[in-house]
């Protein structure tokens, strides 16, 4: 005879975590993905779906940006891989809302402002690495030279933090305000790194064009300068 199903202690033991799991990073086995009409309905607009088998069962994500997220993914997830999917940002778009009669014919349409989710879909290890990098940026005690040596990909992030520190030192008199400002800067930078957004790159200033034949050539790069 079957035992009674066991629930209670196992369900929603960590509701805060459960909420974050839903909103922040969805983890699951990539079952399938592709272009399809939204919700697989022929009368809906073209969209893109990603179907994941999560610990809570199958979940289907919808969004036109999911195709880009998978195509441009650093880790190039494939069907069967354990992946994470996260809404990284939203962008404003204008969508056409179609109103239909009972037989599905379009009777009117109007434009409306909406937001499109921008996704990051990568193999799960990618998010672990980003979480590690984000902690490095948040860590106030980190030695910048050591950190850049260990994580050259974070060079730009550390330089931005250093620039913000110099700005704060010059412009913000109150030490408490200065500390809060730096906390916000580091938090925002770490947040976007952890979200999976592209790591910032250092942009070199383009030397001003000159017609003078006697103009000095640009100085050679020091070892500290990034190469592209």
């Amino acid at each position, binding site marked *: 005879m*079957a*035992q009674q*199903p*066991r629930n209670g202690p*196992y369900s929603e033991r*960590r509701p805060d*975590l459960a909420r*974050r*799991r839903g909103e*922040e*990073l969805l*983890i699951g086995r990539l*079952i*399938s993905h*592709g272009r*399809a009409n939204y*919700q*697989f*309905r*022929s*009368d809906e607009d073209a969209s893109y779906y990603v*179907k994941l*088998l*999560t*610990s*809570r069962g199958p979940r289907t994500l919808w969004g036109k940006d999911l195709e880009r997220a998978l195509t441009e993914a650093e880790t190039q997830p494939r*069907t*069967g891989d354990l992946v*994470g999917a*996260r809404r990284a940002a939203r962008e404003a778009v204008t969508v056409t809302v179609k109103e239909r009669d009972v037989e*599905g014919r379009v009777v009117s349409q109007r434009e409306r402002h909406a937001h499109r989710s921008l996704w990051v879909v990568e193999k*799960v*290890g990618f*998010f*672990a690495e980003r*979480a*590690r990098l*984000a*902690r490095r940026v948040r860590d106030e005690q980190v030695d910048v030279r050591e950190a850049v040596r260990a994580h050259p990909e974070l060079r730009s992030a550390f330089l931005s933090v250093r620039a913000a520190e110099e700005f704060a030192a010059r412009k913000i008199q109150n030490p408490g305000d200065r500390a809060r400002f730096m906390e916000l800067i580091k938090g925002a930078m770490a*947040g976007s790194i*952890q*979200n999976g957004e592209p790591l910032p790159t250092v942009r070199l200033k383009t030397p001003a064009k000159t017609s003078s034949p006697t103009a000095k050539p640009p100085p050679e790069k020091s070892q500290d300068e990034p190469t592209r």
Partner: protein
Amino acid sequence: MNRPVEGEDEVLDIGTVLADPSASHWLKQSIESALQRDPVDALNDALVLAAVLDGHLRDALDLNDSA
């Protein structure tokens, strides 16, 4: 309203998984062991196992920080 029509997904039936050379030995053993049990209990436990392992992965990879 038209009925939704889904694309074909990866088929996850018992025979397919047991015959899949890329499926782990642990997974195949677990399936064979679960088939000996009451199916309600087996699925109930498997769902708990999936939830526990989800949490374990997030802890192990430190993915629990909110972004």
